């Protein structure tokens, strides 16, 4: 073996060795790589497995915790799986119940359900399908369903669906529609005209009343969508001031702020009240609502009421009667001008004060209090008081008081009407004083008449005595003429005496107060017939029974005495008749005293009643008798007159009040 050979061999071996080493190394690397790969694979498998587990449980969780009912069924409707919500919905006993869903479908819906299922099979899914079912608990329910088909290797194997119970929602919807309808009807028939416009002034809604108010013949429905600017423009002439109407609308729309209670006058006399309400959604202007109300009647009524109130206020303010309103605690609430005038105070001095302390009542408080208690009992009546004015003077007032009630009928105070009767009262007092004075002076006159008559009569007595003494002392010395003259003196004295007596009597009639009593005139005349000298040829007859009258007994006696003695005195017939009669009238008695005496000439009929008018010169006639008669009749509020014919007789008529 040569070296060379050896060398070659040796070098070949070395190369071989190196190659094997390299291969060994590669192998080693590969093995390491493989291991690495295996490690990683293992790792990733673990991860995958956990991921799967996780997803699986997640899915299970999702399935079980889906809020909406979820059901999986086979293609024949048998339930494969469902969640709790579905159990509740379908009214099953538990999640484990298995049954055919088709059994639950309401008979009404069987057809549509069948069709929908075909559609589901073909299309793979179905949405928004509504159906009615009867649950296992026999409840009728309306369901909403979204469903899809589950495929395995491209073959449909099952169907799944999410179901919602829309029974309540449906009911609510129906209710909503109903209430919307109601609202619409309400709006349509509202007594106010309604006009709803959108933000572009397109008419959204209006009603009958609006059409009526604006004389629009179309129906509210037909108006929908019209441009309101035109509507308003065509109808502006309905208003008294059309331009102002348009201008106002423009101004309101510009500001877009609520305007309530605007008043519009229409040509036909109607008055409308208009409200404007803008409508915002969030901050976005979406339109506005007009409402028009016919307030003509209300306004007229209010105007009438105001006019009436004005009238009464003015009456109260200007009437000549004082008016004071008090609350229940005597506090002054209201007074009128006349009251201020009566009391002398200004309004400020009175309002809020106690009436009794400002305008006190003088005098007999007790009786006034009594009156006031009567008033509290609800009686309204008038009473007289004396009040002290601001100046301290006393005013006489006639107060008419009445309680003031509120709407519930409770007493809230009182109203007193004051009539200032001071002037009247003064007059009355003056009259009373005058009457007293008159009575006094009448008494004095009477006294005076008596004194005068006494003083006049006394000398007559003296003269008579003296004449008699002359006669006595000169018995047989006086010649016949002187005796006759002396007798004439005596006659004259008698006449004088009678005259004085009559004058005294005449002045006495009416001087003394009349004493009223019931007088039986029959008895009076009968009595007179006994007392008076009645010659045998004269008869007195009472034709009808005389009545009983109210009057002064003495004076009535005097009255008949005068008539009868006149009739007796002036009778020239052989047989004298005096007839006394009476006729009853509603208010009075009419008496007559008729004689068949000498009669009175017509021209003297008025004169006979005048004092000192004796028609016939007679010793026993002074001409005062009939004057006294007239005076007595006047005192008894009667009248007297004559019917007479000269030569045939006289009838005196007179009346006496019943």
């Amino acid at each position, binding site marked *: 073996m040569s070296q060379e050979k050896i060398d070659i061999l040796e070098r070949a071996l070395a190369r071989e060795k190196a190659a094997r080493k390299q291969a060994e190394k590669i192998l080693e690397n590969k093995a390491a790589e493989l291991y690495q790969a295996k490690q990683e694979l293992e790792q990733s498998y673990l991860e995958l497995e956990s991921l799967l587990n996780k997803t699986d449980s997640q899915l299970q969780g999702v399935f079980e915790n889906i809020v909406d009912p979820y059901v999986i069924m086979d293609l024949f409707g048998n339930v494969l799986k469902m969640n709790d919500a579905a159990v509740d919905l379908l009214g099953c006993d538990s999640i484990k119940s298995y049954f055919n869903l088709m059994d639950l479908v309401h008979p009404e819906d069987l057809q549509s359900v069948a069709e929908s299922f075909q559609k589901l099979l073909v299309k793979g899914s179905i949405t928004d399908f509504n159906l009615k079912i009867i649950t296992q608990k026999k409840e009728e329910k309306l369901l909403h369903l979204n469903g899809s088909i589950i495929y395995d290797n491209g073959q449909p194997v099952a169907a799944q669906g999410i179901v919602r119970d829309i029974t309540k929602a449906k009911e609510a919807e129906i209710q909503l529609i109903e209430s919307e309808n109601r609202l619409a009807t309400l709006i349509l028939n509202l007594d106010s005209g309604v006009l709803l416009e959108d933000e572009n002034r397109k008419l959204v809604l209006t009603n009958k009343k609006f059409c009526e108010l604006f004389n629009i013949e179309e129906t509210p429905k037909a108006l929908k969508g019209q441009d309101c600017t035109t509507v308003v423009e065509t109808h502006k002439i309905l208003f008294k001031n059309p331009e102002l109407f348009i201008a106002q609308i423009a101004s309101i729309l510009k500001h877009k702020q609520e305007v309530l209670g605007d008043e519009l006058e229409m040509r036909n006399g109607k008055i409308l009240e208009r409200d404007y309400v803008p409508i915002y959604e969030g901050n976005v202007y979406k339109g506005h609502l007009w409402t028009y109300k016919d307030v003509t009647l209300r306004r007229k009524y209010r105007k009438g009421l105001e006019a009436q109130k004005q009238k009464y206020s003015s009456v109260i303010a200007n009437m000549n009667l004082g008016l004071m309103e008090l609350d229940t605690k005597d506090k002054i609430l209201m007074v009128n001008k006349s009251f201020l005038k009566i009391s002398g105070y200004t309004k400020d001095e009175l309002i809020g004060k106690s009436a009794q302390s400002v305008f006190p009542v003088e005098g007999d408080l007790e009786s006034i209090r009594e009156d006031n208690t009567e008033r509290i009992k609800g009686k309204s009546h008038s009473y007289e008081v004396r009040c002290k004015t601001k100046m301290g003077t006393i005013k006489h007032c006639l107060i008419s008081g009445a309680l003031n009630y509120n709407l519930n009928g409770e007493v809230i105070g009182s109203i007193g009407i004051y009539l200032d009767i001071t002037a009247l009262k003064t007059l009355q007092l003056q009259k009373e004083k005058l009457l007293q004075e008159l009575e006094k002076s009448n008494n004095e006159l009477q006294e005076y008449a008596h004194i005068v008559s006494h003083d006049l009569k*006394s000398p007559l007595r003296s003269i008579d005595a003296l*004449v008699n003494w002359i006669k006595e002392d000169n018995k047989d010395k006086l010649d016949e003429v002187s005796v006759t003259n002396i007798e004439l003196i005596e006659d004259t004295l*008698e006449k004088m005496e009678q005259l004085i007596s009559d004058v005294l009597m005449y002045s006495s009639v009416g001087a003394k107060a009349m004493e009223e009593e019931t007088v039986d005139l029959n008895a009076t005349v009968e009595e007179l017939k006994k007392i008076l000298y009645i010659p045998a040829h004269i008869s007195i007859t009472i034709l009808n029974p005389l009545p009983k009258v109210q009057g002064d007994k003495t004076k009535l006696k005097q009255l008949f005495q005068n008539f009868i003695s006149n009739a007796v005195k002036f009778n020239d017939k052989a047989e004298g008749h005096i007839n006394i009669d009476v006729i009853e009238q509603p208010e009075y008695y009419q008496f007559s005293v008729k004689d068949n005496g000498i009669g009175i000439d017509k021209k003297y009929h008025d004169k006979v009643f005048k004092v000192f008018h004796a028609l016939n010169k007679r010793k026993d006639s002074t001409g005062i008798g009939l004057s006294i008669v007239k005076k007595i009749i006047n005192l008894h509020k009667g009248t007297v007159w004559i019917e007479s014919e000269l030569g045939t007789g006289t009838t005196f008529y007179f009346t006496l009040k019943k």
Partner: protein
Amino acid sequence: MKSLNILLIEDDMIEVMKLNRTISKLELPHTIVEANNGEEALQFLQKKDELPDIILLDLNMPKLNGIEFLSILKNDDVLKYIPTIILTTSNNQQDLLECYKIGIAGYVLKPLKYEDYVTKVERLLAYWSINELKQL
């Protein structure tokens, strides 16, 4: 017939004469004391030594008039027992009532005719002369 002491209170001279003449004419035993008015009469009566049996009193007199005099008289414990007869021309009812109220023994009207007067006085005095009077 009993003789009476008569106090005549009368201001009219002729009236006094009338009474005196009547008494003398009728020849009556009575004594007349005259007083021209109430005051004078009171002065006389105050002495109380010679009190009259009856008083004839006129009403209308100056100074103290009849009714005033009567009131004083009737208030006097002694004098009130003297019967007082009014002799007057006045038939004023008021006076008459007032007199009877105070206390009088009669009210006689003076008639117009003198003969009638004589008759009335005669009867009046006849009546009083048969009356028992208080011993003064």
